[in-house]
């Protein structure tokens, strides 16, 4: 009964948010194109033969960066910016007096946006294969399924991290500046600019203790067929979700007590 009601809420939220996102289809197409950093990185790596230093072939490296692009497309999170704006404009107030946590709305917005992004990402992949025909491969169904799950878990980790930062809006109006600080390790340690395997051993040993390599490196390696520990990767993703969720609950609860309903 309860789960039916929650399912209905989520489905309606998704439908409405998807309709809303379709109003911005051109913008979403542009956002999808703007996520092509991995392809620039691929170019830098291959032109400088950097892949030789980490014993990875050109083909595997191009597949890795294509997968990194895909993982990034379906795990990108901007909740801190939405919440900050809504908080400053007083839009959070009506959400707070509804029997639905506002973050579920933002979650649905992200999922709806990912669904809208999907065809654009496929078009970009199509062009990638035209220019790199040697990279074409078809992952087996099991790997594909695991990669989708790990990408979704990566999205949840990023959503939780940003939601925790977003809740700081209850104390400081500009929580997004803290998110910008987090963007630096995310960029360098997640595998977006370089596979984590390329880092020196002593650096790798502590990078793997942070959530960052499980955001892009792990799902991208899994999908591209590069060597990775499936069990270890999933365990760490689940562990980080279990660690971050109570922190979010705690900070949300403390923050709403601090809320002043500014701007409304």
């Amino acid at each position: 009964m309860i789960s039916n009601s929650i399912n209905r809420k989520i489905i309606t939220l998704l439908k409405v948010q998807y309709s809303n996102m379709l109003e911005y289809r051109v913008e979403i197409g542009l956002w999808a194109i703007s996520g092509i950093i991995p392809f620039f990185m691929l170019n830098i790596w291959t032109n400088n033969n950097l892949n030789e230093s980490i014993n990875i072939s050109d083909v595997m490296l191009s597949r890795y960066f294509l997968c990194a692009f895909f993982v990034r497309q379906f795990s990108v999170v901007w909740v801190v910016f939405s919440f900050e704006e809504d908080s400053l404009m007083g839009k959070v107030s009506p959400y707070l007096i509804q029997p639905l946590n506002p973050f579920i709305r933002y979650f649905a917005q992200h999922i709806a946006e990912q669904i809208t992004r999907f065809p654009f990402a496929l078009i970009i992949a199509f062009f990638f294969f035209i220019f790199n025909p040697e990279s074409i491969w078809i992952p087996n169904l099991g790997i594909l399924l695991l990669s989708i799950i790990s990408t979704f878990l990566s999205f949840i980790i990023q959503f939780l991290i940003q939601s925790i930062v977003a809740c700081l809006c209850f104390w400081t109006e500009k929580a997004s500046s803290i998110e910008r600080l987090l963007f630096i390790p995310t960029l360098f340690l997640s595998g977006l600019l370089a596979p984590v395997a390329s880092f020196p051993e002593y650096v790798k040993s502590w990078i793997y203790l942070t959530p960052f390599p499980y955001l892009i490196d792990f799902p991208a390696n899994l999908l591209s067929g590069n060597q990775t520990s499936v069990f270890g990767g999933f365990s760490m993703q689940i562990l980080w979700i279990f660690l971050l969720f109570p922190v979010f609950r705690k900070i949300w609860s403390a923050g709403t007590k601090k809320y002043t309903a500014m701007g409304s």
Partner: protein
Amino acid sequence: MSKNIIEVKHLSKSFDISSKEQGLKGTLKHFFRRQTKSLKVIKDINFEIKEGEIVGFLGANGAGKTTILKMLCGLIYPSEGSIIVSGSLPFRRKENFLKNITLIMGQKQQLIWDLPPIESFYLNASIYDLDKFEAKRRIKKLSDMLEIDDELFIPVRKLSLGQRMKSELLAALIHEPNILFLDEPTLGLDINAQRNLRKFLKKYNKETNATICLTSHYMKDITSLCQRVICVQNGSISYDGKLDLLLKRLSPVKEILIVCHSEKDATKLEESGFSIKNKTKNEITIKIENNLFTSALKTILNNFDIKDLYINEPPVDEIIGKILIKKDYDI
């Protein structure tokens, strides 16, 4: 006898406010050593509201009316005291409590800007666990009451302010709440839209026996909807009671414009001991205290030969304005 649906005891609220001195020196000082002070905006207030009542909160800007409404609906946490609304502690925001209330803030919208209002209505319906058929029935009923139809299918961004406000109301009432908190609901609306909104609220209150707590700077909202008002001054309650009594208390005199047959008659009236406001030729305006009004009127009619007579009640806006302009007005 209706039961109390809202009970507020010794309620206070303080906010931490940071202050900054003017100029570059002040800016640098503010950057390195931010000074904050605690400001008590609501000070030990008590009141009760009965089921089905429409209560208006009056006060100057910054008096604390909106802060009280925000605490009543559970949006902000009280610093001291207790609030019980519909048997619940508002700030806990339990599902049952949230399904019983709504908050409407003029110019603040919950509708999705780029989609037609109907999409937001069905979304709200699912948030409040209404099935599709029930949602459809309520949308039909409320849209009939609010007299909106085609607007339901036009993107919100293309609606006029009045149409948007009606849609906001529909979105906020789809779960048929028992308690409505309305903060300046007619802000920015034209006269007709204001009148329609008041008509709707009256009807909604009559049909559902909903309790309505309202703040507004448009006195017509207060006079046409509220029998009871709570005046808030500097965070304290200075008056809680019937609107009629407040008006009598704030305006203890009535004015009578008397048109005499001649200037001579007017002069005779002027010299008879009444308090004169002004006199022009054969017209004279006198001020009479409310409790002496009937006897004074009898005296005038019996002793003076007058052509015509007009009784002027001071405008409500002017009377209430005294509270708003002068923050420490003694009620």
